[in-house]
């Protein structure tokens, strides 16, 4: 019996412990706002899975989240902390909107939407490459370059929504003139679930997993991320690898942005990225850059996001609780990991 237990790696205990402490922390926070954790859990469950409408919404949030997370897998594998993902999503959304606005009326919607997504890819990838250039040639840390570019992109979106692309007579946060119904991705029944968007996201996830796990490209990326110098000495074109990881991440983010336009909002709104990029960063850090775990965690996070809307509805609580849960899970996971390493080192 004892020998059996000792076979479980020590780190597992730390992970379980971290998870338990995170739950405890969340319970305390809920209790501080004089609510019952059980009610909150039930409410959120109901909020996410209580009706087909809501479940559809979980899926429709899941799609861009998956795409952004897939993109981030590439940059994290290359050892880069792409905080600019929000901006890359926005850039994709702007590019897609640009294309849909430019397309003449009466154009085949299927082709128009396809082109819009392609434009999103292009826009996001360009934005990613720009961050890469700043990082590699400008020596600006990708963290701050990304952060700065997020705000800049936000400014661009605002400029467009309030300036050249504003609705006649109106200029508001509600965005540009909505596109005609034909120009949106078909939904499943009367819900917000777009099977095509989901298909794209799943394909992206499979693509990412295959590239990272089974191709020379993915391996080279990992080599660059783990030891830039040695990878270079071994003959791997390190700069090209880094730039392409930025470009791929941007491209995925761009798809996410264009889906936000063609499948969710049907227009450009200033906050088109909707914090999904940051959320994806949390997802990817929590799964420790392992593509196989992205789907369940992204699903959990998207359920939390959607489910939390029930809190103000039925419990008069603020829906920001979902962010607290997501953050706490990751924070304690990181601290637990560190503690595990520390005890291991001091033991040896």
């Amino acid at each position, binding site marked *: 019996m004892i020998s059996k237990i000792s076979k479980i790696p020590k780190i597992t205990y730390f992970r379980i412990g971290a998870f338990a402490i995170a739950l405890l922390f969340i319970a305390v926070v809920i209790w501080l706002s004089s609510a019952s954790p059980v009610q909150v859990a039930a409410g959120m469950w109901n909020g996410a899975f209580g009706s087909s409408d809501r479940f559809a919404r979980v899926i429709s949030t899941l799609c861009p989240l998956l795409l952004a997370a897939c993109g981030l897998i590439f940059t994290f594998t290359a050892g880069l902390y792409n905080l600019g993902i929000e901006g890359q999503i926005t850039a994709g959304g702007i590019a897609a909107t640009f294309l849909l606005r430019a397309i003449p009326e009466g154009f085949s919607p299927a082709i128009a939407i396809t082109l819009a997504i392609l434009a999103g890819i292009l826009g996001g990838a360009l934005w990613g490459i720009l961050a890469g250039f700043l990082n590699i040639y400008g020596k600006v840390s990708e963290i701050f370059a990304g952060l700065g570019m997020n705000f800049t992109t936000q400014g661009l979106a605002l400029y467009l929504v309030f300036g050249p692309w504003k609705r006649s007579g109106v200029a508001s946060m509600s965005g540009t003139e909505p596109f005609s119904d034909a120009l949106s991705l078909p939904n499943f029944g009367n819900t917000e679930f777009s099977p095509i968007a989901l298909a794209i996201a799943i394909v992206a996830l499979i693509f990412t997993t295959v590239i990272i796990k*089974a191709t*020379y490209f993915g391996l080279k990326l990992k080599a660059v991320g*783990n*030891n830039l*110098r*040695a*990878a270079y*000495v*071994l*003959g791997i074109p390190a700069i090209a690898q880094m730039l392409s990881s930025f470009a791929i991440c941007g491209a995925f983010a761009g798809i996410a942005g264009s889906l936000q336009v063609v499948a969710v909002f049907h227009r450009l709104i200033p906050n088109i990225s909707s914090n999904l990029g940051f959320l994806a960063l949390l997802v990817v850090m929590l799964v420790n850059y392992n593509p196989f775990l992205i789907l369940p965690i992204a699903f959990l996070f998207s359920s939390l996001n959607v489910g939390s809307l029930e809190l103000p509805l039925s419990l008069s609580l603020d829906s920001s609780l979902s962010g607290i849960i997501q953050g706490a899970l990751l924070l304690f996971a990181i601290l637990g990991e560190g503690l595990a390493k520390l005890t291991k080192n001091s033991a040896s």
Partner: protein
Amino acid sequence: MKVELCHISKSFGNVRANHDISMTVEAGSVYGILGENGAGKSTLSKILSGFITKDSGRILLNGTEVEIKTPADAICAGIGMLHQDPLDFPSLSVLDNFMAGRSILAKQQAKQERRNPVKKANQINRQQLTRELQQLAAAFGFDLHPSDRLENLTVGERQQLEILRLLSLGVQTLILDEPTTGISASQKTALFKAVKQLASEGKSIIFVSHKLEDVEELCDRLMVMRQGEVVGESEIKGRDSAELAASLVDMMFGREMALPAKHEGKLEESEIALSIHDLLIEGDRLSLQLDKLTVKSGEIIGLAGLEGNGQQLLLLACAGLLKPKTGTIRIGDLDMTHRPYRQFLKAGIAYLPADRLQDGLIRGLSIQEHFMLRQASSISQSGIFINWSETRQVTHQAIEKFNIRGKPASKVERLSGGNQQRTQISLLPDYLNLLLMEQPTRGLDIESSLWIWKQMMERCEKGMMIFFISSDLDEILQYSDRILVFSGGKVSQPMDAKNLSVDRLGQAIGGKFE
């Protein structure tokens, strides 16, 4: 101040850096510590200066035992150390560097003397310190300007500043860890003058070096270390220079390694395959100048010298990893000088770094993944997807052939140093024109070393050239056809290995090659 170290031991994991070391330094004397790379000299010095904590042993100052746990303790006890690699703040000014750490010491001292620590710390004043620095510099004939930024100074000047700083702290014991490695001849003269002056004032100096002539010139007594242990101790005054040098070389490098079979190449008729002209390479600390070198195919060139004297610069330049300032490097008819690194790889040049996990192998990747990477970066890369079965097979073969203790899935950082080196070697491309190796057999047992050299020599028979750096003189003498000796960025004429003795080579490395 009389310094006594008694039975000091220190291990890093499996490495026994210091083992049961005892020594005594009389007040007013200069005590030399000699030893090959990795002998444990710096470790001993750092223990005395509180930078690392000893595992066991005692330290006595003027006969009383002291507890030295941190650098602050050491400075309070009057011990200061000039580190081997400059340990200062390049982005700060000379004056700031001079001042840094002073208040901590003041507080510590005040605590010991039970005075108000804040008052003492506040007594430090910029003008006053500027004056003190200038006076000290003048007294030793150093030319230092308080407002200069440190990064604009030479290594020698930085050392001078550090010494002045330590002296102004009232240090009675001064440890100098290889202070002569990166400095000019005139700076060395100034340094020696200062050291002698300090000794005459009654301070004790510990002088760590590899250089025989420096030790001879400066020290009153010395000890020689090898592999963490003391292998000899000797008085210097009054001994014959040549006889002393011979015995020291003998102690430093040891002779117990069995000599493997000598290389028997027929080099006379092969054509010149590598030529270097008017090369000037600028490194961080020193620049290397090499007027002319031609190498025939199949030839093995040993680069001898103590670490940090320019060997690595030449190696990196030949590998394409460092752009020379001037000069040309040609492989056959191909002028490689300004080509990108990948072209060097294509031209059949490979580099085998000494720091395996830093420059050669990738932490977090398995042996098999390294073979996949080799596959990916080779010119004949086949397809996008990883060919698992093929690479597994290749990896298995390599593990068997190179006798690597590990599985294909073992992460390289889990391998022992020797097996990491075997992995590095096993990853070399099959066909090479020039192989550049740093410390090729460091950490390997004799049998594996022989085996590796056998492999290398077979390759040389087919025309591959080798440049290699080794701190093991026997290895250099044994396998080189010709030897270049490096000292302070200068390179000796190529010496024929056949006509060279260990003694002669040792002396050349000590700087006596003209």
